[in-house]
């Protein structure tokens, strides 16, 4: 495509359990039934980046998510933030990262054409950071991960600054491509009441999971190879002694305590 053509952007997002609200039962297991969920924190950065690129370059942003009907809550938030339309891949099946990314890729192919897929660096519940690069592999597209800045080039490519551990790498790839963004790339906007109301009029298309299954002659869909056998609360018991007097009093009490702990 030429640099001037409107961009077709797809943002992937996950409706994830809100870990800060997650309760523990008597046996130390999480109470997932009825647990509160919301858009995974960093996915809001992905939505923001998609919408702000659209605002600069023109085009459309489609929010894409996979899950049960609950996912609509996060999709609506993305629409209120400025996505134009959404695709919900209905699935109540347990899928691992490989299977999830496979069906997302199939959905992207059905929604084609597209120029740029944006994911976040990792989901708030597992923080695997796998779905983005896997999506790129299924679609056989270039992948740029941990993007902290994007810049559209005139020649139909995107230049990105990647926040790696030891360095910042500046790289470039032609559209179509897949990127994952880090949280410092932007500050997600808060939609106005009007935008929230308007979002409910935007179209949400449904792709049932079965409709994305491979046809005869196509390679089989991956099975979920990874299983969660058990989830238990991490224990941490601390003394929780609070000093609430004047700063001077608290300071000397703290020093005394630390001395008797043998850490000073």
């Amino acid at each position, binding site marked *: 495509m030429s640099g001037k053509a409107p961009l077709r952007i797809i943002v992937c997002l996950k409706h994830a359990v809100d*870990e*800060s609200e*997650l309760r523990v039962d008597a046996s130390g297991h*999480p109470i997932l039934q009825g647990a509160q969920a919301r858009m995974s924190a960093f996915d809001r950065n992905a939505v923001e980046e998609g919408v702000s690129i659209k605002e600069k370059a023109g085009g459309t942003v489609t929010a894409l998510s996979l899950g049960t009907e609950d996912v609509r809550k996060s999709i609506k938030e993305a629409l209120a933030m400025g996505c134009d339309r959404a695709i919900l891949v209905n699935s109540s099946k347990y899928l691992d*990262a*490989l299977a999830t*990314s496979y069906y997302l890729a199939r959905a992207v192919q059905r929604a084609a054409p597209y120029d740029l897929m944006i994911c976040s660096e990792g989901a708030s*519940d*597992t*923080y*695997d*950071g*796998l779905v*983005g*690069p*896997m999506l*790129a*592999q*299924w679609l056989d*597209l270039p*992948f*740029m*991960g*941990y993007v902290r800045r994007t810049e559209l080039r005139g020649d139909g490519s995107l230049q990105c600054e990647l926040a*790696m*551990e030891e*360095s910042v*790498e*500046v*790289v*470039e*790839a*032609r559209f179509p491509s897949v990127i994952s963004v*880090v*949280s*410092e790339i932007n500050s997600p906007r808060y939609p106005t009441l009007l935008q929230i109301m308007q979002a409910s009029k935007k179209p949400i298309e449904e792709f049932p999971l079965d409709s994305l299954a491979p046809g005869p002659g196509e390679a089989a869909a*991956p099975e979920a*190879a*990874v299983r*969660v056998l058990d*989830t238990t*609360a*991490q224990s*941490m018991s*601390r*003394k929780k002694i*609070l*000093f*609430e007097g004047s*700063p*001077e009093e*608290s*300071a000397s009490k*703290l*020093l005394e*305590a*630390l001395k008797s*702990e043998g*850490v*000073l």
Partner: protein
Amino acid sequence: MRSVLAFSESPALAAEVAAGAATICESLGGGFAVIAVSSETPSPSNFEAVADAIVEVAKREGAQVVLLGATRLGRQVAARIAVKTSQGVLSDVRDLRVESSGGAAAMLTGVRPVFAGKFNAKVASVLPCVATIPSGAYAPQGASASSTQPPATVEIAMGPKAPERVKHIETRPKPKNTVDLKSAEVIVSAGRGFKNKEDLVLVENLAEALGGVVGASRPLSSDLGWLGEERHIGLTGIYVRPSLYIAVGISGQLQHVAGIKDSKIIVAINKDKQAPIFQVADYGIVGDLYLVVPALLKAIETQKAS
């Protein structure tokens, strides 16, 4: 042939990954570890070629597990290998072992943090599979001592140079790590309770007075950039285990706390009595850090003088 293939582009993690591979071999019952090395430095431009070369070696060596470091690049390599071979990936796992129960096929199991470290999950994948381990999961020295056979080393052969889809433009190295948080005995960390970058002199002075180093919550090191990213503590940064950890103006969200759980003593200074950090602290001072830290500095000085 039953083997475990180990690879990490990070020199710091390579020995740990090798130790992890040796441990898995033991539970495989007579497997051997193969350490893959690459003559080309893996990068965001060539990680696909690296992954493809690893797939080739894994096939040749009959690898049951490909073990990688859970670095930013390592995760991308894992993703490509998994899609190419249709294998599962266990991310950020420790305590890896091969288990089989009641005639079912053997699985690789491991333990990893989920829900921002509030919980641990025991996860399993059918073999063969890919797994990534975080730094600190395996002690490097354990490798040769415990393994039945010294690991073999193979060089991965990158295929004929294909035009790279991700073009490298420029590398901007970060300032060399000047601080070693992982082995620090005392860490004083700053959070968003600080109003200006200049005010961080307070934590610097406190760290110095206690013979410690300065750490940071993610907003300070990443989003605001007031402190270097090598000081970023937590789920997406460094896991620390000092004798004394002092959190100044840090709310104590799960993701930060995940990185400090192994501290011997945790101290929190926060003006909000309801801040979650007080729930995970041994000692807390409820108050304004701009008053409390100077008071602490003064008290330490007085004590030193007497």
